[in-house]
């Protein structure tokens, strides 16, 4: 295949995009494409010319399992990446993508990763408290919570809920000693929430749990949580010297 002649290049690009270029020729052409930016641009021009034809097609709804499989594949890839390089990667704590991709990693693993992250990154202003909240049934991580300053809770959404406007999610502390749950506040069902935390510090101790319940609008009237949809144990991150390098 000689690809010097402009007309030949355009013709090959057109047949590549149309799809009549097949088999070995197609694969060889793709090899050329990797090395030849001008040829790639020619292909893009042809795609822009011909692709609008696809608007003719009546949409066909794919089954829901397709999306589930896509998500599962991304989750697997994310947890593999997280398990492989997260402790060394800078700024992971602040990478929402990491948290949002974490779906399949158990809260225990996540908490361990967190602890390691802090251990090796003492320069950042460390959160005082962290918790990873997961669904009990399948360990799917829903939220993580950090306390960046003494009186602020930062609740980051990992996997948003699909509830309509008639329902709200409410955050609670379940004390370590089994005492009565205490409401912290309504949180955003679809995104992150920043909560003021003035008078609840005493309950936020090691071993206590955060829990999220689903409630009617305005939150629980009884002062007790309704159905708990996810929870996680609070972990304080002590200031401590870095861990020794990980053994592999």
């Amino acid at each position, binding site marked *: 295949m000689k690809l010097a002649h402009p007309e030949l290049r*355009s*013709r090959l690009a*057109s*047949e590549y*995009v*149309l*799809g*009549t270029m*097949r088999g070995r020729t*197609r694969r060889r052409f793709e090899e050329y494409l990797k090395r030849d930016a001008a040829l790639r641009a020619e292909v*893009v021009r042809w*795609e*822009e*010319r*011909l*692709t*609008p*034809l*696809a*608007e*003719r*097609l*009546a*949409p*066909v*709804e*794919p*089954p829901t*399992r*397709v*999306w589930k*499989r*896509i998500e599962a*594949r*991304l989750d697997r*890839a994310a947890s593999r990446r997280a398990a492989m390089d997260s402790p060394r990667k800078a700024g992971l704590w602040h*990478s*929402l*993508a*990491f948290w*949002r*991709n974490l779906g399949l990693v158990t809260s225990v693993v996540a908490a361990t990763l967190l602890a390691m992250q802090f251990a090796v990154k003492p320069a950042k202003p460390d959160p005082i408290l962290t918790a990873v909240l997961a669904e009990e049934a399948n360990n799917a991580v829903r939220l993580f919570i950090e306390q960046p300053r003494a009186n602020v809770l930062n609740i980051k959404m990992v996997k*948003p809920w699909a509830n309509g406007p008639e329902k709200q999610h409410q955050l609670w502390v379940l004390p370590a000693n089994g005492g009565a749950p205490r409401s912290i506040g309504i949180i955003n069902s679809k995104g992150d929430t920043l909560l003021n935390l003035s008078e609840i510090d005493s309950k936020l101790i090691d071993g206590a749990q955060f829990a999220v319940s689903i409630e009617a609008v305005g939150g629980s009237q009884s002062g007790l949580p309704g159905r708990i949809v996810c929870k996680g144990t609070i972990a304080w991150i002590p200031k401590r010297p870095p861990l020794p390098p990980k053994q592999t």
Partner: protein
Amino acid sequence: MAEKDANARLEALLGRCGVGDRRAFAELYDLTRSKLFAVSLRIVRERHIAEEVLQDCFVNIWNNAANYAAVKSAPMTWMTAIVRNRSLDIVRRPLVEVADEDDYFALGVQDEGPTALEQLDAKRDQARIERCMKGLDTEQQQSISLAFFHGLSHSEVADHLGRPLGTVKTHIRRGLQKLKGCLDS
């Protein structure tokens, strides 16, 4: 409305996918899945294969969203090309089923014309290529449509239309040149 807004919306979503926003990805999927599934289904013809193509392509789109900005093509063009390429890669048909013929044209070429016409206002690019397609000879149109929508190779198009291979190749080559001239003018 629409086309510009839709493009801007898809571009924004791809941008967010590029920084790892899974919610943006879910929305992108919702907005494009049925069109892209239709594109693949028409080429690979079997639902379970089209489902796999769609899965592969969306994983691919997620993984490459950060590079999208460098592509400089419209988001739907970019995604459709990914789906078409994947579909063409895996389609391995020994022969064109002649029994399909009536079906084909009912589904693929003629019945969808009115839909296209109804949407002309909103879809400028589509309107242009449809107009240019109408400027082609009937056989050029048929050949190009069969290749584009059904993923047929030259020889499959030739079998399907009962024409010599060389004739079909010429129709397609000249048809594409004419389209280019028309679209670029």
